[in-house]
């Protein structure tokens, strides 16, 4: 690494290095961010949850959306895998099922950016979802 020759240099360096701790900083105040939980139990992984997770992370990153993408265990909707739960700041969580790349794109562009609902919502009583999460 070259020397820091000015304050401007340091600031530029900081912006480049930001990504190193960004994830940690975001996870400290999740309420303010878009939170996406991808169900990653065996059923989810088999049906492509991992690819969806990577896609969501990269795509939101490209669009500079401040989001926190985490994986959770089975949410109990194995019939509709891959499932993801999206929580916009100050909103109740919404679970989407059968998420493929096309639907993921739709969720990002319509729901996350503009707040418009997208097809594929699984109607759930959130409390039961919460209990099932730790199976």
């Amino acid at each position, binding site marked *: 690494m070259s020397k820091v020759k000015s304050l401007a240099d340091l600031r530029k360096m900081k912006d480049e290095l930001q990504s190193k*701790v960004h994830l940690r900083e975001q996870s400290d105040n999740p309420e303010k961010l878009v939170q996406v939980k991808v169900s990653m139990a065996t059923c989810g992984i088999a049906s492509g949850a991992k690819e969806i997770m990577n896609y969501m992370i990269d795509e939101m990153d490209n669009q500079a959306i401040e989001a926190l993408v985490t994986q959770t*265990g089975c949410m109990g909707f194995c019939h509709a895998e891959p499932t993801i739960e999206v929580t916009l700041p100050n909103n109740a969580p919404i679970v989407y099922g059968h998420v493929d790349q096309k639907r993921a794109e739709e969720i990002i562009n319509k729901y996350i950016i503009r707040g418009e609902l997208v097809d594929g919502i699984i109607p759930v009583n959130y409390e039961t979802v919460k209990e099932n999460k730790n199976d």
Partner: protein
Amino acid sequence: MAKYKNHVLVCGGTGCRASQGEEIVQNLNQVIEENGIENDVQVVRTGCFGFCEKGPVVKMVPDNTFYVQVKPEDATEIVKEHLVKGRQVERLLFTDPETKERISESKDMGFYKKQIRIALRNCGFINPENIDEYIAREGYAALGKALTEMKPEEVIKEILDSGLRGRGGGGFPTGLKWELTRKVEADQKYVVCNADEGDPGAFMDRSILEGDPHAVLEAMAINGYCTGASIGLIYIRAEYPLAIERLKIAIEQAREYGLLGKDIMGTGFDFDVEMRYGAGAFVCGEETSLIHSMEGLRGEPTVKPPFPSESGYKGKPTNVNNVETYANIPVILLEGAKWFSSIGTEKSKGTKVFALAGKVNNVGLIEVPMGTTLREVIFDIGGGIKDGKGFKAVQTGGPSGGCLTEKHLDIPIDYDNLLACGSMMGSGGMIVMDEDDCMVSMAKFYLDFTVEESCGKCAPCRIGNKRLYEMLDKITEGKGTEEDLGHLRNLSNVIKDTSLCGLGQTSPNPVLSTMENFWDEYVAHVKEDKCPAGQCKSLMQYVISEETCVGCTLCSRVCPVDAITGDKKAPHIINQETCIKCGACYDKCKFAAISIQ
């Protein structure tokens, strides 16, 4: 640069490393590789999380799951379950001692709820051996801002306005000290970081240096800019090998980046830092003594004035500040004096780091806003007294401080309130005592320490403290008289008034404050030959009840000194002259016939 989806933060503080923290990191990395997710997951070795009692601590990001008491063999499960399948490893979560519930996120733990982290902001968050992570957290931006956009006077004004006071014990306004050093004309000046930390049980400064060494280096450079010093010296005890190692790495990296050395950030400002090692004497934490020790002289204090700001290291103006004081500086410059002074009480701003120890459930390192009450610290953060026992007192300020009791629990903690209660802030040691702790013994413990640590230069401290210790010893042996109590008080006051340095001026405090708050306990020792807490062995007796004893002979067989006699099936008797009070008979008797009196 690889883009990681998960960070696994493993505590690399002294406490957790001692319990195999290194092996955990190695095992995690190995299993992560075996599972082919090394491009998704980054394992980071951080500084102390403060929750050392339940260490080693591992924190998972971004979901913030907080695992405690992790063992190297748990690595497989953490990787396969948590990272691969997204399921928490339940058994490694922290269990709330009150509700018995498992808590997965640190922010929901009572221990962390009331804390605000300013000095510890990067501890347990970044890898202290990687300057990039510090820079990513706005590291050296405060130095850059000061050098490029502010005059020294402006920086000092900001520190003054923030209300920051020295965290090393005295509580002297930091901005004022900088201003005093700045005003003195000299060809060479020095800034010193006091990392001696001699208070028994304290480890605040060590944790900051281990977890965020760059913060201290950056602040020292800012101090140099303000006072006109080009050399910084860190005085650290050789007993802190990990902190020394991390500081050396940090200094090396900062030099490589041009953040220490000549012409920093193209501003023409030169500043570099050197290390000086102490042998771990308490008195060397006193600033004049520390300076003499660095000069290669005996670590003995000299009279102030002259203050180090006028004539310190090698006779040059020297600005001495504590580690934690420094750790606050960069944040103040970035966030502003207004922000900092909005935290805390009227005359004590910001936060204070405490090492919470003794009979509390959550022992550890905490940082709370000034003005937090002792009750919040002990019961909310500390999780209450161990084993459901009753709270008795808490010692703040270490050997220089005093004890606070039940009636002080709701007083907001700050410099002035603690002084008014007969104790002091000190550097941040906080030792909690329960109903089983004898206050006379506690005072004796601290006097034993000061007698050991007195440099011997002046008579009141060298001889006086020894006499105090002897009197306390006599009282705990049950040989004290009421007269002794008067002598204790008089001598304490004489030592306080006539000692040369802070050590002797404060060493009688534990005696005076326990006498003030627990007078009855002293009286019980000398008048009734009783130790109400049951801690002073000489003052208690094991006695066999004639009625309850069935004469099973078990006790007489376990007694190591044959102090128990009695015929089979007849009541036994303990010979008090021979008994060494080991308690073996008490533990063994199945009929509860033996009691402590």
